[in-house]
C-alpha cells in the first residue's frame, strides 16, 4: 500500500514539474522574475479563470521604461522568437523593430502570440518598450479587437 502511495505522489510531482517546464522561447528568461523588483518595470502574470472570457490560458507582459541599454537585447530576443513565427506583422523604424505581432507555432493545441512595441524609437512616445506573450485558443484578429 505504501508503495502505491509513493507512486501516486511521484506521479503528482512529475506532473507539477512538467507544468513548470520552460516553453523553449528565447524571451522566457525575461519573465523569470528578474524585473519583479525593478522600479522601471511593470510585469504582469495572469493565468486561468480570469482569462476565460478572453479565450486565453496565459498572459504575460513586461513594460520597461528608461532602460535603453536593455532595449536592444530584448529586441534581439523578440527577433529570434519572431523568426519562428507562422504569421507576423512588423513595423520598423530604420533598422530597429518598432512593433511586431507574431503568431508562434502552437504548442499543446494552444495558439501562442508575442506582441512587441518599442516606443523609444518614436519621437512622440514615451521611452518604453512593451512585450506581451499570450497562450490560448483565440485568434490574432480576436485578440486585436478584444482589448479595444
Amino acid at each position, binding site marked *: 500500500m505504501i508503495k502505491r502511495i509513493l507512486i501516486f505522489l511521484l506521479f503528482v510531482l512529475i506532473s*507539477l514539474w512538467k507544468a513548470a517546464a520552460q516553453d523553449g522561447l528565447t524571451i522566457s528568461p525575461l519573465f523569470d522574475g528578474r524585473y*519583479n523588483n525593478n522600479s522601471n518595470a511593470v*510585469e504582469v502574470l495572469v493565468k486561468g479563470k*480570469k482569462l476565460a472570457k478572453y479565450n486565453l490560458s496565459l498572459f504575460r507582459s513586461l513594460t520597461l521604461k528608461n532602460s535603453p541599454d536593455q532595449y536592444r537585447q530584448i529586441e534581439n530576443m523578440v527577433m529570434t522568437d519572431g523568426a519562428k513565427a507562422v504569421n507576423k506583422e512588423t513595423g520598423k523604424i530604420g533598422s530597429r523593430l518598432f512593433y511586431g505581432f507574431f503568431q508562434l507555432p502552437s504548442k499543446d493545441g494552444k495558439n501562442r502570440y508575442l506582441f*512587441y*512595441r518599442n516606443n523609444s524609437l518614436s519621437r512622440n512616445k514615451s521611452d518604453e518598450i512593451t512585450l506581451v506573450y499570450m497562450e490560448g485558443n483565440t485568434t490574432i484578429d480576436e485578440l486585436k479587437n478584444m482589448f479595444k
Partner: protein
Amino acid sequence: MVRKDNNMNLSGHSLEEWHQLVEKYFDAETTEDEEKILSRFLTSRYCPDKEFDEVKAVMGFLVTGKDIHKKRSTFKLYRKPYRWIAAAMIVLIAGSAAWKITDNRNNVCVAYIAGNKCTDSREVMNQMRLSINNVNSVEADNSVDDQLKDIFGTINDSEQNN
C-alpha cells in the same frame, strides 16, 4: 459423581462432593458441563466464601482471560479495514494538497508594478489591458492624445517657419 442435570439444585450436593469436583477441576478432568455446574455453584448463595476462594479466583481469572482474548480476536478482524481507511485518508489528503497546488499554479493573477507586488485582480487586469493597448500600434497611433499632439505639433512647426 456429578449428575449432568441442568435443573439440579445447586445445594443438592454435600460440601465434600463440591470439594471433589474442585479437585477434579484443578486436575483438568472436568467436562464442560461439570465446569458450568461448578461455576453456577460458586456464584450462588449456597457457596461458602472462604473454602472456595481459590477456585473462584482461578475460574474468574480464566473467564477474564477468555474475554480479553475474544476482544483481541475481534479487534484483529477489524484491524485491516482501519488500515485501508487510514490509507484512503492519506491518499485523499495528498490528492487534495496536489489539487490545491495545481489550482494555485493554474490560477494566477499578479503584477509587479515598479518593484511592488500587486495581487488586486482589478488592478492586475487594468495593467494587462494597458499592456495590450501599448502594443496595439494601430489603436495607440490613433488615440486622441496622439491626434492632438500631431495637430499641435503641426501648428508649432508652422509658427516657427513663419
